């Protein structure tokens, strides 16, 4: 029997509200399959399962809020006898059918209410008519403008709280050092212009994609800037999963991961980035995207800032920043002066894990990579 527990979908997450099951008892699941949707304070996150198996029992009901680590479901391992497990679990398995009173079922049907999203307060946790009525109440209220307006600040306040907790922890625990370097971007810009020349608008690459790819490749040589700091020691990560800081329209931000960025082609990376931004803003991220970033990239170029000095998202050990792409006076090798498109790349790193020297070498490598865009 495999226990499927509510994972931590970010260092600041203590509990989550199960929104939806994507599977039911008896379903076979594959490692990596999304089987549940959980609301953290930040987003509705699609949670993946990490074992192959067959769903045996769903222990948490949609609508319930449970702490991280709670067993949400039980799975049979491949080969595990369902009969034996069923025999041992027979009474519970029978009880696994959700209790919904006949009246509640009828009421929900008549009013088009999705019972999966209704928490039960009746006998044995059964959903009653009152529960269904309560569930439809907010909908009616939301129709009223003032209520709808009130609902948004609530959500925003929650996210604010979560960000505050993570950032306070970071600044309290992590001794940051900051380095920055102005990187000439003429070659990258030229290469990008050429690469995009024949493409329709929808298939064009963004400079951010080149930057992400360069960061990922550069980090290959700097394990002390990639991974986590846990229990007083650095746990390096072989893979580079780049957390991409995405600001949300209603305020706040998330930094979900694009996995194995070093392995992705630029087109693939572009598609992943576009998809991630879209889903982050729609509030439908996957659990692994929330919990997996090994390092984060914060690009505030759009806002026109010169440089970024970002705060590490614990338990990560570094964060890379990019300012806006802007023309600057540039002294050439032969002492001449020219106008050069440049970007200020910066790194904030955990001094417990790496020293400024390492950070400097990383920025130099990053700058070098951006001079050979054709190799990215």
């Amino acid at each position: 029997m495999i226990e499927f527990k509510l994972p931590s979908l970010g260092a600041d997450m203590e509990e989550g509200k199960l929104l939806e099951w994507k599977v039911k008892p008896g379903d076979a699941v594959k490692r990596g399959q999304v089987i549940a949707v959980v609301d953290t304070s930040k987003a509705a996150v699609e949670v993946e399962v990490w074992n192959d198996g067959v769903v045996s029992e769903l222990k948490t009901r949609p609508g319930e809020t449970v702490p991280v680590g709670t067993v949400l479901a039980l799975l049979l391992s491949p080969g595990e006898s369902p009969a034996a497990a069923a025999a041992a679990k027979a009474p519970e398995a029978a009880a696994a059918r959700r209790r919904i009173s006949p009246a509640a079922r009828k009421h929900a049907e008549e009013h088009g209410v999705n019972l999966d999203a209704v928490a039960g307060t009746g006998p044995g946790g059964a959903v009653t008519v009152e529960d269904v009525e309560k569930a439809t109440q907010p909908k009616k209220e939301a129709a009223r403008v003032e209520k709808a307006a009130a609902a948004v600040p609530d959500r925003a306040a929650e996210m604010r709280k979560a960000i505050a907790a993570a950032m306070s922890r970071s600044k309290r625990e992590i001794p940051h050092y900051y380095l920055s370097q102005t990187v000439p971007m003429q070659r990258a810009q030229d290469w990008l212009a050429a690469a995009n020349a024949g493409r329709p608008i929808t298939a064009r690459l963004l400079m951010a994609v080149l930057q992400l790819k360069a960061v990922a490749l550069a980090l290959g040589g700097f394990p002390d800037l990639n991974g986590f700091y846990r229990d007083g020691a650095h746990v390096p990560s072989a893979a580079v999963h780049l957390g991409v800081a995405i600001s949300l329209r209603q305020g706040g931000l998330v930094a979900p991961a694009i996995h194995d960025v070093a392995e992705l082609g630029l087109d693939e990376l572009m598609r992943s980035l576009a998809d991630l931004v879209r889903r982050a803003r729609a509030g439908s991220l996957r659990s692994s995207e929330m919990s997996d970033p090994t390092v984060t990239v914060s690009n505030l170029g759009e806002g026109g800032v010169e440089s970024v000095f970002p705060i590490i998202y614990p338990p990560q050990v570094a964060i890379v920043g990019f300012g806006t792409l802007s023309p600057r006076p540039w002294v050439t090798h032969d002492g001449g002066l020219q106008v050069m498109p440049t970007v200020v790349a910066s790194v904030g790193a955990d001094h417990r894990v790496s020293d400024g020297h390492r950070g400097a070498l990383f920025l130099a490598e990053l700058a070098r990579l951006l001079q050979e865009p054709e190799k990215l």
Partner: protein
Amino acid sequence: MTMTYREALRQGLYEAFDRDERVFLMGEDVGKYGGTYAVSKGMLARYGPERIRDAPLSELAFVGAGIGAALGGMRPIVEIMTVNFSMLALDQIVNSAAMLRHMSGGQLGVPVVIRMSSGAGRQLAAQHSNALEAWYAHVPGLRVVAPATIDDARGMLIAALQSPDPVIVFEYPALFEMKGDLSGGTVDISSSAVRRKGSRVTLVTYGACLPKTLQAAEELDGEVIDLRVLRPLHMEEVLKSIQKTRRAVVVDEGWRSGSLAAEIMARIMEQAFYDLDAPVARVCREEVPIPYARHLEEAALPQPEKIVAAVKGLFG
């Protein structure tokens, strides 16, 4: 006019006797002794031995005689001391009274009224404490009524005597000292009645459990339905109430298995399934012979606390 349940029963007898000369009362100790529960006290002097007839100690014989008299055009009221002894007359009641209309192809009717007391609570021990209303409510051809109020104690007897077919009237010694106002109007023997309005739960009961259920309903905001008529069952008030409350508890002094409560629950399931927010619950007598000791007898019977607990079980 305020009177006791017992006085209301007697009032009903008086009126029945006065309005129809064919009516007479027959049973053990109904005359000289004035009735085991003193219901017919004074009636022998008032109506004479022709109409108030002491019967020998044979339920089979005097119930059979009553049926014969009914077939012959009389309107007999047969009193069986208690439901416990009615088992001796079951053959007459079930095979004769209930079936003769059918067996005769409609030529014969048996307009007999059989009164008997039922229920426990008076430390009379197991053999004198049965509540077997469900047995009679099982039989087609019988009408079974259970007066639990002053008005019904008086009026149901009068209505029963209008019936062309046999009517069993259960009377409740546990209620004999209960006092209340007699309105004096006519009552039917075909419907149930809401005895207390409420919104949180529907409490269905009859007979001696009615006051206990009303007591429990006070702290529960319960709606109390008095079935009144146990056969044929009238479910309309029950179903209407459940549409409002979505929960029901049946309180029945009979044993749980095969009880009237079981029948009520089955009908609710058949007719009101989609109105329910919780499984229907019931409070019945424990499935033991009723003990003699007072505290054990009380523990074996439905009580307000048990009703309250059952209702609370219907909420999360």
